[in-house]
């Protein structure tokens, strides 16, 4: 099964919906140890993506994702702008010249996005960021492809890993982002970004 531009577009629209619907919830997640604006910051960008979705150049997957990344970079506030913006920019690059994506290519698109986030923000696994959900999910996609699972099975696996990863952030002390200023006080509270990854993946599967 190959994913076409139209599917990517639908997926991103769905993703935008989920982000917008979870605005308040994501803010609350960020309140406990961060500064409580994560939901707002993210929604600001994806509301704009949603608004412009029909005008975005969808002549190719790459150009579609590239334009999304520019919108996100312009409209998402705080740390989320560059994190999600660079992820989308890398994802766009990853699909260069392709007019359809197999699971293998989707997995490496995720890998490229993770690498871009790490390059931008300098965080690694265990720093209590969204990477703690996104990296396990990415690995799950890759392994699912290697053992020949279906797209659906792969994403179910990825969603499960993201959920476990987000849960695991509870026992971490934040060392990146605003939450890092509160030291120990971030213990027992999950990272907002990681929780968001988990929620997004889970909801996309419904």
């Amino acid at each position, binding site marked *: 099964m190959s994913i076409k531009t139209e599917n990517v577009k639908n997926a991103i629209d769905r993703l935008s919906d989920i982000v917008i619907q979870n605005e308040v919830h994501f803010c609350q997640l960020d309140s406990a140890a961060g500064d409580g604006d994560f939901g707002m910051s993210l929604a600001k960008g994806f509301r704009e993506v949603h608004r412009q979705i029909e005008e975005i150049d969808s002549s190719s997957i790459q150009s579609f994702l590239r334009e999304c990344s520019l919108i996100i970079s312009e409209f998402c506030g705080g*740390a989320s702008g560059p994190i999600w913006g660079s992820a989308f920019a890398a994802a766009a690059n990853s699909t260069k010249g392709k007019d359809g994506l197999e699971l293998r290519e989707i997995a490496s698109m995720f890998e490229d996005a993770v690498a871009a986030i790490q390059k931008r923000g300098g965080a690694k696994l265990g720093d209590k960021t969204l990477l703690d959900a996104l990296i396990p999910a990415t690995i799950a996609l890759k392994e699912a492809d290697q053992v020949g699972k279906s797209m659906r099975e792969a994403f179910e696996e990825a969603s499960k890993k993201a959920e476990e990863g987000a849960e695991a952030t509870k026992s971490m002390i934040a060392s990146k982002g605003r939450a890092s200023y509160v030291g120990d006080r971030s213990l027992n509270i999950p990272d907002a970004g990681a929780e968001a990854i988990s929620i997004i993946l889970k909801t996309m599967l419904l």
Partner: protein
Amino acid sequence: MKKIINQVDQAVSEMCKGIVAANPDLIMDERYKIIKRKMIDSNKVALISGGGSGHEPAHAGFVGEGMLTAAVCGDVFASPSTMQVFNAIKQTRTSKGTLLIIKNYSGDCMNFDAAAEMAEEDDIRVERVYVNDDIAVEDSLYTVGRRGVAGTLFVHKIAGAAAAAGKDLNEVKRIALKTIESVKSIGVALTSCTVPAKGTPTFDLGENELEFGVGIHGEPGIRRGTMCSSTELAKEMLSKLLSETGLAEGDTCAVMVNGLGATPLMELYIQYHDVEEILTKVKISIHKAFVGNYMTSLDMSGFSITILRLDDELKALLDAPADTEAMKV
């Protein structure tokens, strides 16, 4: 929440318009919320700073002769986006290149970094410095490092004077870095601030409590204490600042007693009186003092003390003329 505003989501943009309306030397790019000088000298290094709003007069109040070329205004307490910063760099481009003065917060760093990379792809020379003067947060390998707070104003002033003097980008950057190494701050809050979009205070402090080591976004401090006298606060804060700046008898510094937004000037001057007495006692001489609201945290009540260790080079640049809305030298 009682605030003199209209719609919450228009507050930053109306404020920016108010600033340029009040100051004929400034203009505004409305789309990207950039406040910049009307006349930009194309033969001098451009200095750009910015960050979340809610810290007024920082940073737009420091755009002008001898200080910043432009300030990029994010939403309240949120970094401006990569695109905002990128456009500020493009719009103020000069033949000598651009220095970004960034307060060390991950959001700000990532957005300014990404913008700098985009600008470099467009062949604009961009250098960056990160201000990290807040000694409340311990520096360690495991964190993003210390926050940038009121000490940033000294970087604006001194790097601004260096740029105005026609120095090249490397030289302006070297001087900015030296200022950053020499400046330390610590703050204390008597009340929380209220972010307009939230509408309720970020934290609660009892009638007899204070938050020591507070950040400028309502981040909690390093300890909650009980209210004490101005003299006691000055003592505790200065002892930390002096050990961090390594200032000793015979040395010279500049001092800023900075209000966090809702603190009357009367109290800031009382605090400065205590600071001055203590420094005089330990024979550290104060070359210049700034008392007022420079880097605020919306309607937070409290203050910060900033100490800048001075050598002859920094002293001369600090004394050089500046003509901005919020600082005139």
